[in-house]
């Protein structure tokens, strides 16, 4: 089982590195440098403006709040996979050794993050309160033991359902953490180090006991792990395509009234609109590109740049939405319907034209608002509509032709 953990972990790391390469591409790294540089500069200027040991009344509650929020970052990563319920469940008895490895790994990661947070907060505490450095160390130890306790709660939830209940989560993760943090901030931190350490020893024994008495909740553990990975994949999906991410369809009932009613002979019109609205992949893409385009256009003052940006965004949107044409090809019934390929293409063109047309209007309106004249907006609208005709006509056909 320890071998399994090591294998899983190295595979997981390889995968994460692969995606992180896409995340930290040159542009993003540059942007991050600027953002963090700016934030750091602002923070240090703010600190310099404070008189030493000012003891603001809001400082300690604020720090406690930040600590409680950041304590929620970092979950227990078990790296279990859905097939494990079949293949590994016979090794039930050896699960503790696997889980302990997983726990230690997750703990180290979370502690790294918490130490960073503490390092950021330290100057503020020293300036804005009467904190001494020894108190700071006590507070740090309290935060680390709290993280240990919170992760142990997640560990216990793999054996007993009650630890996964919302009331338990709120009570332990939020309320208890807040209380301990406030305590360590306002009173002698050493006591709270001792309290949390004692609790840690108690919880450690409890885990050992529960592991011998209770059955490992495979389904819960696998569902937790999948939910955790999904968050990661969603994040990566902002930068690149993640094949594991099958965005589940969302019902979005409130949009039903805008969807086309059933009309004989037009099944694809009906299908494409529903996929566009309910499939997370496409709807996210549309929202993302429209928002980003609108924001950039709002801050662009050069007319030629505004033209370029709007044309580019319409092209990107149209280009990426073309995948929708083959979205239903996996479904055998689309090949069985007595509907011709031409009807399918026409329906798709129509859907694409309307979607891009709405974006074009949005961009044109933003431009008009920004320049306070309808002239530029009107010109952009005309250019974009011409672009859409070209995109959904000859361009679409040539692209589909190439892949067929």
């Amino acid at each position, binding site marked *: 089982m320890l071998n399994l953990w090591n294998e899983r972990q190295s595979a997981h790391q390889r995968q994460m590195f692969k995606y992180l390469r896409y995340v930290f591409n040159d542009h993003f790294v540059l942007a991050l440098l600027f953002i963090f540089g700016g934030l750091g500069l602002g923070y240090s200027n703010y600190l310099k403006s404070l008189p030493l040991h000012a003891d603001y009344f809001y400082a300690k509650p604020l720090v406690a709040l930040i600590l409680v929020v950041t304590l929620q970052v970092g979950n227990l990563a078990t790296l279990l996979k859905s097939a494990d319920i079949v293949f590994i469940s016979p090794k039930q008895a050896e699960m503790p050794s696997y889980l302990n490895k997983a726990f230690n790994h997750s703990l180290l990661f979370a502690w790294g993050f918490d130490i960073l947070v503490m390092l950021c907060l330290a100057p503020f505490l020293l300036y804005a309160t009467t904190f001494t450095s020894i108190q700071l160390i006590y507070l740090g130890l309290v935060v680390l033991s709290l993280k240990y306790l919170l992760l142990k709660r997640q560990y216990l939830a793999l054996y007993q359902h009650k630890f996964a209940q919302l009331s338990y989560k709120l009570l332990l993760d939020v309320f208890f953490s807040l209380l301990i943090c406030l305590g360590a901030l306002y009173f002698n931190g050493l006591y709270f180090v001792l309290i949390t350490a004692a609790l840690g020893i108690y919880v450690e024994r409890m885990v050992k006991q529960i592991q011998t008495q209770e059955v490992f909740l495979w389904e819960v553990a696998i569902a937790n792990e999948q939910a955790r990975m999904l968050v990661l994949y969603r994040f990566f999906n902002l930068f690149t395509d993640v094949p594991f991410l099958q965005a589940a*369809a969302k019902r979005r009932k409130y949009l039903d009234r805008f969807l086309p009613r059933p009309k004989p002979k037009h099944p694809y019109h009906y*299908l494409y609109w529903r996929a566009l609205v309910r499939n997370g992949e496409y709807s996210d893409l549309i929202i993302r590109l429209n928002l980003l385009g609108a924001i950039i256009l709002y801050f662009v003052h050069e007319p030629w740049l505004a033209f370029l940006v709007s044309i580019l965004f319409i092209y990107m949107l149209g280009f990426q939405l073309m995948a929708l044409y083959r979205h239903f090809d996996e*479904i055998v019934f689309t090949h069985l319907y007595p509907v011709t390929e031409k009807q399918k293409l026409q329906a798709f063109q129509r859907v694409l034209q309307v979607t891009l047309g709405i974006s074009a209007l949005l961009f044109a309106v933003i431009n008009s608002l920004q320049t306070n004249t309808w002239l530029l907006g009107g010109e952009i609208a005309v250019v974009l509509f011409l672009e859409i005709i070209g995109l959904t006509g000859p361009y679409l056909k040539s692209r589909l032709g190439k892949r067929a």
Partner: protein
Amino acid sequence: MTLKVENLVGGYSQVPVLKDISFEVKQGQLVGLIGLNGAGKSTTIKHIIGLLQPQKGKITIDGVSLKTSPQVYKQKMAYIPETPILYEELTLKEHLELTMMAYCLETKQAWEKANKLLKTFRLENKLDWFPANFSKGMKQKVMIVCAFITEASLYIIDEPFLGLDPLATKDLLDLIAQKKTEGAAVLMSTHVLSTAQEYCDSFVMIDQGQLTAKGNLADLRQQFSAPKASLSEIYLELARVGERNA
């Protein structure tokens, strides 16, 4: 209404999986397509529904082939796949509406049929849900309802019983019987031989891409010179012969 498969040679690549298969499904008949895993049942079905093109031979429904008039051919046929295939983004109601649109069904009439079928399969209160999240058996029921609201005259049913509860199995068999009396032809592949023996009018047995036997139970008994054998015994015999030849 007749499905005619004549000298069909075909498969996924240049190497043919099916070697010279011929059989017929006549009006009012339920024909069982029987063979071991990998014998070529699903490949045969894929050729009939038009997912694969025959390398040699011909497949016609009432003399119409997929090549000459695809729309007419497709209009005549309904298909229930082995593994339920559903649209992630459509509700149960929308699956039915889509079927009605694709096959140009008269809406009011089709909904009458649909409501009856939904009630039979206890799906009537799930119209607004995504069937993609249903259990296997319930997904299969959605497939059945969609297929049986069409006015198809040929039903292609691939291993329908797995995952269906006994009540639904019986309801499906009743539906097939009803369609038969209305003049439809049904081709069904299955491994549930006791059910096949009881309900099928005749059988097509395939082994390693070749047709090994066809006809009703009496014909098969004669062919295997086992006058009292059940379908299951004949099938096992066939499998043994196939293994010896392999």
